[in-house]
């Protein structure tokens, strides 16, 4: 039964430690390097704050726990995970509704479910749930994705959780779903012209969406256009972040020598603005090295997706890589003043348990896809990705 036939759950041996012998060490190596950089940067960020447990230590705990989860997922057959797609999706819809009904309010949003000792943020993991759901959906419909109704159904699938997350309100997370869907659609072989129509419709919808934004969200968008209009108000983050990054110069101020972050001119510098601290202390050279590490990691992820034996794996890999790419790109773009301030953490570097778990789960999924590489090459069905004419 080691070699599964098709996607039927019955044919899959869901859990296999044997997978651990087929780990992608290149990917894992990159993860370790980035995680280490994350600890180092958090150690520096910790200078100005006195907390009982330092950030980097907590972050290390998250990492260890994350590694455990990643390896656990790597042992799972990703086809089994994909087959659970609809179920996971429905469960998360329920959780999101529960959050809106009884969730815990923090920082201007209702995002947390209080589960006794730990808070649980369903919207964080909804991203993964949607990826799995879409992988299942695209694998299921195969080449029918080229038909418009199936194409549109994709957006219906992401619209439901998207709306619930947007209601919390958590614009950043809601927006993540868009690129994931588009990238997965593209990888699944949808018609390019459908995507173009979709993009045009999206552009037309901007004015409508603008009307539904919260005031603080609108303000943030406006300040990206002209951050100096209100340097002490909503433009403060953008300006201070740009000063922080810019003042790093070519070589940086030196490790533990950053002043902008140390002297608290840039708030949230251990979470969403951790990249500014890195750029300040390590300069252009350091930032580019980290950028390159991220790029290599993501490209490696795409390679794994490409190497997957069948459509589910490719789609899952593409979705996960898109999720991580979106976070890396948007987070850094925010810190360097290219995008409005929205709460989008940077994988491996930003402090925070929930998102670390998301990141490591994504890595686990990639490992799982990689472990099954070339194992069911012979399988004729289901036909995975459909040729695009």
């Amino acid at each position, binding site marked *: 039964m080691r070699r599964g036939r098709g996607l039927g759950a019955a044919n899959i041996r869901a859990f296999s430690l044997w997978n651990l012998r087929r780990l992608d060490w290149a990917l894992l190596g990159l993860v370790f390097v980035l995680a280490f950089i994350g600890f180092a940067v958090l150690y520096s960020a910790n200078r100005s704050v006195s907390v009982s447990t330092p950030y980097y230590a907590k972050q290390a705990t998250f990492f260890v726990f994350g590694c455990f989860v990643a390896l656990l997922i790597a042992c799972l057959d990703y086809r089994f995970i994909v087959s659970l797609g609809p179920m996971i999706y429905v469960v998360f819809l329920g959780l999101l509704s529960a959050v809106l009904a009884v969730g815990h309010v923090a920082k201007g949003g209702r995002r947390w479910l209080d589960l006794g000792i730990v808070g649980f943020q369903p919207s964080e993991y909804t991203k993964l749930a949607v990826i799995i759901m879409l992988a299942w959906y695209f694998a299921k419909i195969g080449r029918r994705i080229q038909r418009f109704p199936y194409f549109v159904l994709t957006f219906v699938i992401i619209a439901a959780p998207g709306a619930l997350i947007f209601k919390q309100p958590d614009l950043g997370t809601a927006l993540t779903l868009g690129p994931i869907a588009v990238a997965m659609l593209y990888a699944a072989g949808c018609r390019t012209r459908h995507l173009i129509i979709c993009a045009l419709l999206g552009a037309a919808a901007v004015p409508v969406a603008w009307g539904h934004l919260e005031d603080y969200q609108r303000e943030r968008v406006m300040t990206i256009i002209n951050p100096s209009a209100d340097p002490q108000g909503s433009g403060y983050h953008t300006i201070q972040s740009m000063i922080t*990054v810019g003042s790093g110069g070519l070589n940086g101020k030196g490790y533990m020598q950053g*002043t902008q972050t140390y*002297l*608290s*001119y840039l708030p949230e510098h251990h979470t969403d603005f951790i990249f500014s601290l890195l750029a300040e202390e390590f300069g252009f050279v350091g930032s580019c090295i980290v950028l390159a590490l991220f790029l290599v990691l993501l490209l490696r992820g795409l390679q794994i997706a490409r190497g997957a034996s069948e459509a589910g794996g*490719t789609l899952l890999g*593409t979705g996960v890589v898109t999720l991580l790419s979106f976070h890396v790109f948007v987070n850094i773009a925010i810190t360097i003043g290219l995008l409005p301030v929205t709460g989008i953490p940077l994988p491996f570097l930003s402090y925070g348990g929930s998102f670390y778990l998301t990141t490591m789960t994504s890595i686990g999924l990639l490992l799982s896809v990689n472990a099954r590489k070339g194992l069911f090459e012979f399988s004729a069905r289901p036909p995975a990705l459909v040729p695009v004419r």
Partner: protein
Amino acid sequence: MPGNAGERRRTRSDLRLVHIALALCLAFTVLGARLWELQVHEGAEYRGKSESNRLRIQRLESPRGVVYARHADDLDVVLADNRPARDLMVVPADITIDDDELCRRLEEIVGIDGDGLLATIQKARKAREPFKQLLIRADVPTAVSARVDEYGALLPGVFTVVRPIRRYVYGETAGQILGYLGEVNTKELREKDSDYQMGDLIGRAGVESLYEDELHGKDGRMLVTKFAAGTPQIRTDPYGKPYVENLVDSYGHSLRVEEEIRQPVPGKSVHLTLDIGLQAKAEALLEGETGAIVALNADTGAVLALASSPGYDPTVFVTRSGNRERLDILRGKPNRMMHRAYQEVYPPGSVFKVLLAAAALEEGVIDADTTHYCPGKFRITPNGRAWHCWNRSGHGDVNVVDALAFSCDVFFYHVGLELGVDRITKWAHKLGLGEQTGLDLPGEVSGLIPSRDWKENRLRPQHPNEPWEYRWYPGDTVNLAIGQGAAATTPLQNALLISAIVNGGYRVQPHVNRETPAAKSQRLLSDRTIGLIRAGLTKCVEKGPPAPTGTGHEAYMEGWHILGKTGSAQNVSLAHQEDYENEEDIPKELRDHAWFVAGVLDREPPLAICVLVEHGHHGGAAAAPLARDLIAYFYDEWAPVEMRLARNRGEPQ
């Protein structure tokens, strides 16, 4: 052919993944480019911004310069300096006992409101600013700060911060000359250099204002790293110098001093020519009156006393709590802010006769032998209006000496008409009447000696409906001849006039700053003129019998050679006074201002004095005794050191 189809599929899907990879690379290139722009291209600019974010210039205030007066001849006396004001502070983070307990103890030891302080402490703790220095009480008396030192062990977290505060050592004495300090306003902040900040004190009047730039000094500074939140909390040693070690901000971040401290440069001192003893005496003499006394060194123009009554104590403007007192001073009647010796004008009255005599003698209009008959009144034309002499029964035949001694109006009516207005104004200008003397204090007024030009070219355009009224009439000259009409001079100008007689005919430059060089004009009056006027002014203070009694006999002192001239300046129309039978019945505010100018010829330094008592009525009765007392005080009780030594050695004076 599943294999073939499989191959095709692979290629297509690979292609799409490659597209995605390319998009990813493109996105990262954008990030890299933007990083290049921020960090390398504009890096220096952002580095500068981050530096200015980080560094805070902490100002170290410079102590204001000291103002000195003289004591006798050669001692400097501090008039205004800075004393250390001790502010009692507490830092919540350093309180090792219960907050409430500390507040109770402070209540007992310092006598403050314990509950109010407790609330303040708890507020700071709540705001997470436990290192903020909280003011317990500003400027505590020495006794209290000593008690706090004594009980130091019982008051953990309590300490004092020392800052300089202006002190006016003699209070009201010379207060108006010193001026006062007030908070700098926005306009001045714009105009002055960056050394001033909101809330700084700046000279508002007198010496404090005129010498602001010298007195202000140069602030020092230190550059400290500063956290985005929180303000640096600096402590001082007992001399007001800041502590540099353990510098923290209100949140407790330790701050680093980034640059060698630049210590403040204290303001320069200003040395005044004022003689503190004479000034105090002059002010004491004016106690209860409204008026002014000027005492000059007739040779140099150095102002030895410049008193004005009522005055004010500039200390009131320094303390933060003196609002009521300040308002009293600013709004009080009579005006206490105005220095009556040089900021207010009065008709010179008979004092002006000294000028008229000098002008007439110099112009050759009269000589020693010229006499005019005084029947008690005077008419320009036989049937015209009559001008009276103050002595209605007349003085008979008078020459210039007697005219000055007995202040004969009629004599000077004649002289005035013969001189004509133009020559009178020329000599007034020469001797410094009716124009600013150039005293080195702010706000000097010029006064006015009316002239043909003034009346016809200045006044007439203002009254287009009755131009005939604004021609110079001979009657105007007659009025001017005895210092009435539109004539208005300051006491300082009159002191200048008498000092010219005392020093032998020179106009001197009055000054209060010892740095101001003594300036003297060309000799304006001949020996003959000086001799005659001195004779007249000497006779004026002579007391009979056997000598005839002059109008200024109240200033007479046995064995002194004193010159004097009385004056009464009408400040309201005579008609009002004539309603009253007896002089004593005239209400005070309708009475004439009393003038007395005096000079001392046989003592060093030669004094020139001018006394004005508002509504004093007769110069001889109200003002002359003050001059006499001042002279006696200066040369006897407060004799300059050199003179006292000489007297002790039995040398001739």
